[in-house]
């Protein structure tokens, strides 16, 4: 019996000695009493820094810290704790994953003072899915007051180029107003507008004008409506039917007014019909399908695609090509330009779309703005060339300009 007792005692001792070894899993977790996990707390971040976020409206504070010594071993996340007083209570302003040492706190109000501390947190889920955490906190720092700035210094370079471009445009507009002759290069696509409509008149067929799928908040659509005015005037003069299917209601309203005005200007307000400019659908491919159907039924002699286009560009242009129409396109979407080039007779590439109205109107002030735009482009090219040379000598001007 004694032997059995001794054996039992020795077995218990061995099991007890083995317990720590058994509990050494990947996580420093121990089993005590009723199996509730007790976990180790990581060391807090050794230092914390907080400062007002630059170039903002005073609604943020940048907080940064040194990683906890246990960052790789124990830490699962960091909590950014914020309070209005050094003594607390602190609330969680935000969290970051381990390895991260910066956080922008956007939950602050301009003019108020704040105190911060960072908690390195070790969190695991126990068997009953409740979280168990160990925390190591840093020292409290503060007070920090967020301040609203009156100028965003990061945009200084944008302001510089904007002023240069605007100054150049305004200078040439004034020159044009003073009566100086300005040369504007020929744009084949715009020159062909009259011929295309003339062809439609001769054939007694319709002209289609498609102003893209963007809304009136897109400059390309505004440029398209400007060109539409000119197209409508020629159509009204020639008594050619103009059809303008649109995909946005606001574009419909604006385009309708523009076409109405154009008909009135040439003294034919009675020839204008409201339904010439009609809404089809907002849906991209529904719009393309509807126009394709109209084109195949009406077989127009001329088609204009001006404005913002996406994947529907080629679907429209290929159908127009199949219908045998003269096609003139212009878009500000670089990805769609190759499709239009492949399927249309003339394509206005990028900026030519914006130049079209000035070119068509021949109004000195508009031509002046074109000249200014070209001058600014020359300056850009010069700057690119200079920066290229600097980059070849290892001077990265972009990082110098990035005032953050």
């Amino acid at each position, binding site marked *: 019996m004694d032997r059995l007792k001794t054996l039992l005692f020795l077995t218990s001792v061995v099991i007890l000695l083995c317990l720590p070894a058994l509990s050494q899993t990947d996580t420093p977790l121990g089993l005590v009493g009723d199996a509730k996990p007790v976990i180790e707390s990581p060391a807090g971040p050794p230092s914390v820094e907080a400062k007002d976020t630059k*170039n903002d*409206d*005073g609604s943020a504070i940048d907080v940064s810290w040194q990683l906890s010594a246990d960052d790789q071993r124990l830490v699962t996340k960091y909590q950014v704790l914020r309070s209005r007083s050094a003594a607390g209570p602190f609330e969680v302003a935000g969290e970051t994953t381990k390895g991260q040492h910066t956080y922008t706190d956007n939950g602050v109000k301009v003019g108020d003072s704040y105190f911060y501390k960072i908690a390195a947190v070790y969190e695991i889920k126990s068997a009953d899915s409740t979280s168990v955490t160990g925390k190591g906190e840093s020292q409290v720092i503060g007070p920090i007051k967020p301040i609203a700035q*009156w*100028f*965003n210094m990061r*945009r200084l370079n*944008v*302001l510089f180029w*904007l002023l240069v*471009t*605007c100054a150049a*445009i305004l200078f040439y*507009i004034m020159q044009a107003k003073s009566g100086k002759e300005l040369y504007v290069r020929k744009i084949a696509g715009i020159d062909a507008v009259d011929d295309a409509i003339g062809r439609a008149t001769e054939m007694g067929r319709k002209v289609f004008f498609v102003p893209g799928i963007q*809304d009136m*908040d897109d400059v390309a659509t*505004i440029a398209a*409506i*400007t060109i539409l*005015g*000119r197209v409508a*005037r020629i159509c009204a003069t020639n008594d050619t039917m103009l059809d303008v299917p649109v995909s*946005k*209601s*606001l574009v*419909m*309203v604006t385009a309708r*007014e*523009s*076409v109405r*005005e154009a008909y009135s200007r040439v003294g034919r307000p009675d020839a204008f019909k409201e*339904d010439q400019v*009609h*809404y*089809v*659908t*907002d*849906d991209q491919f*529904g719009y*393309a*399908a509807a126009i394709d159907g109209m084109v195949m*039924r009406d077989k127009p002699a001329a088609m204009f695609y001006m404005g913002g286009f996406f*994947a*529907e560009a*080629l*679907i429209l242009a*290929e159908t127009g090509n199949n219908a045998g129409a003269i096609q003139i396109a212009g878009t*500000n979407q*670089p990805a769609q*330009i190759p499709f239009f*080039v*492949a399927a249309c007779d003339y394509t206005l*590439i*990028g*900026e030519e779309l*914006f130049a079209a109205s000035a070119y068509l109107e021949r109004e000195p002030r508009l031509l002046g*703005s074109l000249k200014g*735009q070209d001058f*600014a482009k020359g300056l*850009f090219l010069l700057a690119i060339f200079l920066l290229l040379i600097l980059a070849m000598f290892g001077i990265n001007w972009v990082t110098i300009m990035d005032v953050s």
Partner: protein
Amino acid sequence: MKREIPLIITFVAGVAFVLQYFIPHYPFSRFENIFSDWFAIVGAFAIWLGALSLIKLCLLNISKKSHDWPISLLIIVCFLSIVIAGAIDGFQGMNNTPATSFRDPGTNFDWLYQNVYTPLSSTMFAILAFFVASASYRAFRARNTAATLLLFSAFFVMIGRVPVGDYLSAWLPERMQLSHWANWLMAFPNTAGQRAVMIGIALGTVSTSLRIILGIERSHLEG
């Protein structure tokens, strides 16, 4: 006054937008949000103008028995079907606890979306594959030096962007394989061209915006 008021609104909104980009301080910081809210509200009302124009045109076509009047009838039937389905689901959803949306899976609207709208839209997009082929057949012809360069670029990109390119050029060193050529063409000549066009467009946008803000360009308002 009919023309002056839009010009004044354009000028004020344009200048406000420019200022808010550079000045983060209140009240400038709020401008963009306020104006975008206004635009969304005006746009929401304008949707009805579009829908009414569509219905009016279709009804006119039907009453006149125009040559494509059955299509107009189909448009009205489709329009009403989706609106009614959405409205029924929406009202039913409001009575459910918790409230459900007409877009939720299992609704009539969702059924129409999944089984009518999705296949129709996908079909239209798929047509692009056929049109790319016919446009390539017609456009990529070696008429002159520029067109020949375009032709070779198209050849390398098209063959190099699919695995068959590497399959055919596997015997060549890594840096000579077709995918490498395609990547090079996309990363350098394509990017250079795209950037040039983008700079031009950006300047054109600035110039046009300035003309609109200052009221020099007003043909979009008066034809």
